[in-house]
């Protein structure tokens, strides 16, 4: 199984759909809700996202070292199967 991490917002519909898709596939993932972070933890997380997705949009999905911006099912599937 690939190592998957999602930077998400708790209110974001595309993030929700992305998680549902991974759940359906039985793919485990770590999800960080950035809107629920505060202080230093939030600043550090945002800095990490900015490095891989300068647009700072959500979801930002990391499949190993591959970055997928938004819930792009095709790209996500490809990254999971590569």
């Amino acid at each position, binding site marked *: 199984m690939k190592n998957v991490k999602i930077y998400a*917002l708790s*209110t*974001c*519909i*595309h*993030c*929700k759909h992305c998680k549902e898709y991974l759940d359906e596939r039985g793919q485990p993932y770590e999800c960080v809700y*950035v*809107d629920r972070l505060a202080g230093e933890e*939030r*600043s550090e997380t*945002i800095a990490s996202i*900015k490095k891989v997705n*300068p*647009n*700072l*949009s*959500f979801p930002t999905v990391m499949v190993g070292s591959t970055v997928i*911006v*938004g*819930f*792009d099912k095709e790209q996500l599937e490809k990254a999971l199967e590569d």
Partner: protein
Amino acid sequence: MDAKELYGKLKDFQEKKGYYFNRDQKMVMDLLEMLLVNKERYGHMACPCRLASGNFEMDRDIVCPCQYREADVAEYGTCFCGLYASKEWNDEKRPLRVVPERRPPEKVLAGLGLE
């Protein structure tokens, strides 16, 4: 107010301007609910798919309907979060695609007091 009431409040008014709720009703109701969550926690209905600051002035461009809706619906058929669509997009039944973020990241950072 609940999502149903919000739906009723917005529908005709937005349709007159040429913006229709996405044909995916479930998605629309989820988005309206999340707008109400943001109204509760920030005091304004910031786009649920964007990181808001809670400061109205800083979030002004992403208060729904956001300032980017017009350009996104014109170019992609839906807005960034997918709440609003053009009539053509709804009728043509094109699949929902990822709408690239048009909001400059500097605005996200400035709202949060970061650089």
